C-alpha cells in the first residue's frame, strides 16, 4: 500500500514538474530511452547536466564580473547551457537562456546580469526538483516497486 502511495506521489510529483513547466516532453523521451541495457541513463545524463551546468554558470559569473565583458565569450557558454538544458528538457532554464542570449546580442551587461540570476534560479529549481524526483524513484526502487511509466501526450 505504501508502495502504491509512493508510486502515486511520484506520478503526481512528475506531473507537477511538467505543469510547472520545469520539464518538458524531452524528459519523457529520455525516460523512454532508459531500458534494461541502460538502467541509470536518466540519472547519468542529468548528473552530467548538473556538472556541466555548474561549470558553465561558474564561467559565466566570472566572465560577467569582468570590467569589460567579452560577449563573444559569454554567448557560447549560454548557447551550450541552452543546448544541454533543452536536451534534458529543462524547459525553464532553456527559456531563460534564450532571453539571456538576446541580451548578449544587444551587449546589455545589466540585462545579462539579471538573466544570469534568472538562469541560476531556474537551474537550482530544476536541480532541486530533479534530485527530489530521483530520491523518490530510488525509494520506490529500494522498496522493490516499479517506476510507473509516464504517459504525457500533447
Amino acid at each position, binding site marked *: 500500500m505504501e508502495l502504491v502511495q509512493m508510486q502515486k506521489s511520484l506520478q503526481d510529483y512528475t506531473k507537477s514538474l511538467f505543469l510547472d513547466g520545469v520539464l518538458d516532453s524531452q524528459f519523457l523521451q529520455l525516460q523512454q530511452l532508459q531500458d534494461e541495457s541502460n538502467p541509470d541513463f536518466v540519472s547519468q545524463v542529468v548528473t552530467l547536466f548538473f556538472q*556541466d551546468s555548474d561549470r558553465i554558470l561558474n564561467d559565466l559569473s566570472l566572465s560577467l564580473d569582468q570590467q569589460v565583458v567579452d560577449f563573444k565569450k559569454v554567448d557560447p557558454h549560454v548557447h551550450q547551457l541552452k543546448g544541454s538544458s533543452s536536451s534534458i528538457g529543462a524547459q525553464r532554464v532553456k527559456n531563460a537562456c534564450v532571453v539571456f542570449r538576446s541580451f548578449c546580442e544587444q551587449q546589455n551587461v545589466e540585462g545579462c546580469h539579471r538573466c544570469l540570476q534568472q538562469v541560476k534560479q531556474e537551474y537550482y529549481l530544476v536541480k532541486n526538483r530533479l534530485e527530489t524526483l530521483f530520491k523518490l524513484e530510488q525509494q520506490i526502487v529500494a522498496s522493490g516497486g516499479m517506476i510507473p511509466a509516464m504517459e504525457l501526450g500533447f
Partner: protein
Amino acid sequence: MSIACELSNPNLKKTKAEKRITTKILLIRVLCGLVVLWLCLSLSLGFLCICKKKESASDDESSSSAKGMLFRNQKNVSRSEIDAMLSLFFDSNQVTSFECRKESDGITCSLSTRSEKEEDEEEEEAKRHVVAELMSSSDNDEEGGVLHEVVLFYVINKWHWWLVLCVLLVGGGRMIFARKEVSSFVQDKQQQQQQCKRAGQWRKNMLLLCIIAGVSFSVLWFWDTNEEILFQRKETLTNMCEERARVLQDQFNVSMNHVHALSILVSTFHHGKTPSAIDQKTFGEYTERTNFERPLTSGVAYALKVTHSEREKFEKEHGWSIKKMDFEDQTLVQGFDPAPVQDEYAPVIFAQETVSHIVSVDMMSGKEDRENILRARALGKGVLTSPFKLLKSNHLGVILTFAVYNTNLPHDATEEERIQATIGYLGASYDMPSLVEKLLQQLASKQTISVNVYDTTNASSVIKMYGSEVGDMSEEHISSLDFGDPFRKHEMHCRFTQKPPIPWLAILPPGFALVITFLLGHIFNGAINRIATVEEDYQKMMELKARAEAADVAKSQFLATVSHEIRTPMVGVLGMLKLLMDTDLDAKQLDFAETAHGSGKDLISLINEVLDQAKIESGRLELENVPFDLRFLLDNVSSLLSGKAAEKGIELAVYVSSNVPAVIVGDLEDEILKQRLGSDETSCNTLSGYPAVNASGSWRNFKTFQDHSCDKTELLVTVEDTGVGIPVDAQSRIFTPFMQADSSTSRTYGGTGIGLSISKRLVELMQGEIGFVSKPGVGTTFSFTGVFGERERDSSVTALELFDQSIQEFQGLKALVIDSRNIRAEVTRYHLQRVGVSSVDIASSLATASTSCASKLVNMDLILIDKDAWNKEEYVAFNSGQETSTRPPKIILLATFTTPAELSEIKSSGLVDEVVMKPLRMSVLVCCLQETMGSGGKKRQTNRKPKNLGNLLRGKQILVVDDTMVNRRVADAVLRKYGALVTCVDSGKAAFAMLKPPHDFHACFMDLQMPEMDGFEATRRVRDLEEEMNKKEESRKWHTPILAMTADVIQATNEKCIKCGMDGFVSKPFEEEELYSSVARFFDK
C-alpha cells in the same frame, strides 16, 4: 545569404560595365572635340580663301574693265580723229602706243602694240584685236572669279550645315546613349544619380554650345552676306566712277590732242607759208567745222607772240591796238582798254566765231593766262589753268594753252630754245560743267550716282569744278583724272545718290537660321528637361521599389520569425490544455478547456497557412522533385482529416484510379501538397459544410489519370462534396486570399479563407490548373491538374513495403462488401484490392447477398458491412445460421462515426469481429485484417515504426559531434536505442579528423555552434577532403551524410546548412519521426 549574393553580383557587373561606359564617354568626347576643331579650321581656311579670291577678282576686274573701257573709248575716238585727219592732212607723225599689262592668277597677258605710221585698217585691227582679247580675258576672269566665289561660298555654307548636323547628331546620339546608359545600370542609386546629373549637365552644356554655335553661325552668315553686298556696292561705285573718270579724261585728252593738232596746223599754214594761208575767216570757218572734234571746248583762239618793240608795227598791221583783259566787267567787250605797256604781248589774232570777241585782247594781261602761256611755251605741251569763271558764259572753266613754235623742235629741246622758238599760242577754253554734263549724259545710270570734279593742284584749297553736295556722303570713290598737264591735279568724286537699301538678302536667311536654332534649342531643352524628370522619377521609383522589396523581405522574415516564435509557446499552451482536460474537471470547465484547445489548434493551423502564403509570395517556395506514393499520401491526408470530418459528421473517402502509376515523382512539397490537399478539403468543408451527406449520398474523392507521356504524368485531382455549395456571386473571388464566400460563411463554418489561394499558387507552381464547379444546394467539385514525373516502383518510397508481408498473407482472400450505396462500395473494393484482396463482391444488403449468392457467402473469408446497412437482427439470424460452418467469414463493420458506447455495444454483441472507422486507409485496413485473421499481433503493430527506425539504423556507424556533453549523451542514447553504433566527439576538429576518408561512418550528426570550429566549417572541410579523395579514387565515391543538429530550425539556417554541404538537419532534441524521415533518405537503399 542568397540575397547578399544577388546584391553583390550585380555590383561587380555594374562596376565593370561602368568602366566600359566611362571610357566610351571619353572617346566620344574626344571625337566630338576633334570634329569641332576640324570644322573650325576648315571654316576659317575657307573664309580666308574666299576673301583672297574676292580681292584678287575685284582687282582684276576693275583694272581690266577700266582698261577695256579705255581701249574701247580710245578706239572710237581715234577712229573719228583719223577720219577727220584724213579729210584734211595726210602726214601725221604721231606715234600711238598702247601698252597693256594684265595680271590675273591664271593668265598673265602682256601686250604691247606699237603702231607707227601704219595703214589705217591694220592699226584698227590691231587695236580691235587687243581690245577684244582684253575684253574676253577680263570677261573670263570675271566669270571665273564669280564662279569660284559661288562655289566656295556654297561649300562654306555646306560646311556650316555639316557643322550644325554634326552637332545635332552628336547631341542626339549622346542623348540616346545617355538613355541607354540609364537603362543599363539601375541598381546603385548614388552612382546612378551622379551619373544622371553628370549626363544632364553634359546635355545642357551641349545644348548651350549648340545654341551658341547656331547663333554665331547666323551672325557670321549675316555679316558675311552683308559684307558681300557692301563690297558689291562699293565695287559698283568704283566701276562707275572709274568709267566716268576715264571717259572724261579720254574726251579731254582727245580734245587736247585736237587742239594740239590745231596748233600745228596754225604753225604750218600761218607761219610756215608766206603769205599766211590763214586769216581770221579761214580760222573761224575751220574751227567751226571741226568743232565736233572738240565737243568740250567752248572756243579756240590763236594769239601771237608780240614783243613790245613789235607792238606798234603789229598794231598797225592789224589795224587795232592790243587790248587788256578786263575782269571787272566781262560782259562789255567794247570796254577793253588798251593793254598797258609790257615786255611782251599775246594778242589774239584768230578766234572761233563763238569767242570772236576776244580778238585783239592781250592774253598776257590776264594773270591766269599769262602764267599759262609762260608755262606752255616752256614745256611745249598743253597746259591748263586752274578753274576760273569764263568770260561771258560765267561758267567755271579752264583754258588749255599750246605754244606754237616756228621750228620743229626736237624732244629734248631746252626751255630757252622753246621760248625762243615760240611764235604764238593757241588756247582753248573748256566749259567744265557742260563738259561733265555732256559726258554723263552719254553714260547709263547717271541717276544712281552723283559726280563731283575737283581741282586739287593746291591741296589746301580744293576748287570744285562740277557737281553738287547731294547724295550719300558715307561712301565715296575718288578717281584721279589726268588731263595731260602734270602741273595740274584733278580728281573725280563719285557717290550714290541714295542711301544703301536694307540688305534683306543678308538678313532673311540668317534670321531664319537663328529662328530655327532657337526653336531647336527650345525643343531640345524641353526634351532634356523631360529626360531629366523621367530619370528623376525613375530614380525615385527604383528607390521606392527597392524599399518595397526590402519591406516585403522584412515582412516575410517577420512573419516567419513571428510564426515560429508563436508556434513554440502555442505548443506549450496546447499541451497544458490537454493536461488540464485530463484532470478532474466539471462539464463547464471541460467545455472551456476544450474550446481553448480547439482555438489554439486553429491558431496554429492559421499560422502555418500564413507562413506558407508568405513563403509562396516571397517566391522562396521551390518545388523539389521527390518520388512519393500517391495512394499512401492520400491515406495520410484522409487520416489527417478524419478527425475533422468526424466532428462535422462528414463521411470521407478516397479513391484512386487504377491507371495512376504507383510511384510519382513530384514536388518535394509533398508534405505541403498533403497539407494543401487537406486544406483544400478543409476549405471545401468549411465552405459547403456537408450538412446532410447521407441524404444526397453521392460523394467521392476522386483521382483520374488523365494523360500519360513518356515520363510525365498529368494528374487530375477532384474533390467533390455534397454541401451547400458556393453562392454564384462569391465564386469569382474564391481564390483571393482571406476572402470568404461571404462573411456569414466564416461565422457559420469558421476558416480563414487563405487555403484556396495557397492551393491555387501551389497548383500554378506545379504547372497545373485549378477550377471548380459549384451549385448551391447540390455541392461543389474542385479539381486541379498537376504535372508529375513517373518512376519505377521504388520500395523506399512506397509504404507498401511495410505491409508487404501482410499483403502476401491476404492474397487469395475472398471478400464481400455489403453496402447500400454503390459508389461507397466501389471505394471499399478499391481499398481492399490495394491490400491484396483480389476478389471482392458487392451486395446491397445481407439479405440480397444471402439470397443471390448464398453459396458464395459460405466461402467468403471476409464480409465488410457498412454501418448504414447494418441490421442487428439480420446478422443475429445470419450468424446463427452460420454456426455450423467450419470457418465462418469474419465480419467487419465499417463505421463512419460512432459513439464509443455504440461501438462497445456492437463489439460486445460478438456479432462483429472488428469495427473499422472510416475513412478507410491502407494501414488501418491492414491492421484490422491482420487482427481479424489472427495473423498479426498488436505488439507488432504498435512497435512498427520504431522497429523500422531500428532496422534502418541497426549496425550503422554514426558519428555524433557536439561540444555539450549532455547533448552528446542524449543523442548517443537515442541512436543506440535504434541499434546504431555511436561514436561521440566533442569538437569540429575531432569530427574532421574522424571523417577523413577512409572511415567506416555511415552518417554524422553535427552540432552547428561549437567553439573553435563550428559545424559549417567542419562540414565544408570534410566535403573538400572528400572531393579530393574522389578525384584520386575513381572506384568509390565518398560522401558521408552529414546532418545538422540544431535547436532553431529557421529558413536561413537551413539554407546555410545546405550551402556548406550538409545533407539535412534534425531538430534537437531528437524526435523519432523526424529522425526517421531524415535518416531514411540515406540508409534506405
